């Protein structure tokens, strides 16, 4: 197990952030290590520094974050610290304590990464991605909706995972909607692993002192962009049996919007209009929108996986 003592390790870590190179002074174990040329310049820098407690000219001031235009986002989290994200390429962190609080890594890899993508005018979804028949299927949902557990079950049946928790939709090529591979490792609680019949021996811990582990589910898929076939919003703890329902029109648009990681910062960063415009583009590019009702127990999860495969392989 790689120790998280790496927190205060001096020097810089290099990570692959969906094709970009991220240099970070903080260890971010949720992200894959940089595997490109060692001398490549960083696209994004994450470093320790002084962060103001407020922006000089904020357009939006919320309870925990402020924004100015699309280019500046300031997060102030009592107990953790202050984080400033600028222009999609610069993250400055002033932790409140040393060593840095243990939740910092998850905040940087999750919500802060999402802000970077919004600033870069891409669309981050709160989703794990499974490749079925060569096409990407986004499993979306809130925390604890079962995205990673369902993805792990599908991976166990031979399908590759190319993103966990956050995925980036790219629509810069006309008429094409693709997703760029991010992290092929899923983060799973021990209960979920036990349910899936996976032993935790030898798995790296995702959170210090917590029973949460990394499970590599890439199944050796090439890390290239994949055409997005479907956005599936998971509804957990549904009454059995599992059901997969096609959504259309406003219902589909609402489901897509609720999958954005996350709506409030996206709106504050002025991204509401492009996100709205993304929906008809996705529809005309053939992306289907679905709701998957997943019962709580393992049998229900299996049923849900089987229904999803039957529909997506069709």
């Amino acid at each position, binding site marked *: 197990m790689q120790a998280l003592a790496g927190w205060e390790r001096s020097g810089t870590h290099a990570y692959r952030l969906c094709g970009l190179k991220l240099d970070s002074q903080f260890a971010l174990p949720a992200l894959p290590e940089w595997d490109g040329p060692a001398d490549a310049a960083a696209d994004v820098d994450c470093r320790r520094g002084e962060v103001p407690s407020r922006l000089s000219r904020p357009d939006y001031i919320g309870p925990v974050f402020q924004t100015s235009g699309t280019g500046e986002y300031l997060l102030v989290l009592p107990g953790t610290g202050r984080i400033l994200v600028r222009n999609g390429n610069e993250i400055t962190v002033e932790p409140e304590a040393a060593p840095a609080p243990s939740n910092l890594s998850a905040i940087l890899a999750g919500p802060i990464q999402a802000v970077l993508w919004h600033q870069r005018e891409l669309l981050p979804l709160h989703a794990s991605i499974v490749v079925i028949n060569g096409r990407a299927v986004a499993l979306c949902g809130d925390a604890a909706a079962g995205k990673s557990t369902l993805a792990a079950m599908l991976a166990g049946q031979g399908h590759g995972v190319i993103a966990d928790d956050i995925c980036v939709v790219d629509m810069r090529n006309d008429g094409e909607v693709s997703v760029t591979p991010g992290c092929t490792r899923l983060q799973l609680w021990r209960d979920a692993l036990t349910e899936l019949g996976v032993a935790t021996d030898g798995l790296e811990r995702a959170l210090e002192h917590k029973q949460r582990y990394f499970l590599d589910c890439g199944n050796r898929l090439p890390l290239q962009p994949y055409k997005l076939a479907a956005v599936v919003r998971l509804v957990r703890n549904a009454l059995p049996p599992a059901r997969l329902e096609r959504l*259309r*029109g*406003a*219902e*589909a*648009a*609402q489901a897509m*919007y609720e999958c954005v990681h996350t*709506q409030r910062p996206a*709106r504050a960063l002025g991204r*509401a*209009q492009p996100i*709205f*415009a993304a*929906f*008809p583009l996705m*529809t005309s590019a053939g992306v289907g929108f679905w709701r998957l009702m997943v019962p709580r127990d393992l049998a229900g999860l299996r049923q849900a996986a089987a229904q999803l495969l039957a529909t997506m392989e069709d």
Partner: protein
Amino acid sequence: MQEGSTPDSADATSRIADSTIISRSPSVLTAEVDGEVVMMSIEQGQYFGLDDIGSDIWKRLDSPCAFADLIDRLAADYDADRASIAADVRALLESMAARDVVRLA
């Protein structure tokens, strides 16, 4: 009509009188998908869908108009009695106003 809760159709509780001016909200975004007009208020982040008749009503709101005038124009084009058109349209406009896709003045 679809989407959203249907408010009381009883006129007594409605915010919409014959003289109420109905206008499109300045913060609304619209797109046509699957033959349905889909709209969202930027401020609320709530989507709203309109069927064919709803879309027709939306088109007629390209400039603000009084509720009674809107109903007169619809009654001239649709084969239904004015009172039931007024009740249906009032309910639709109430739920559109609740999602800030139209404004009432």
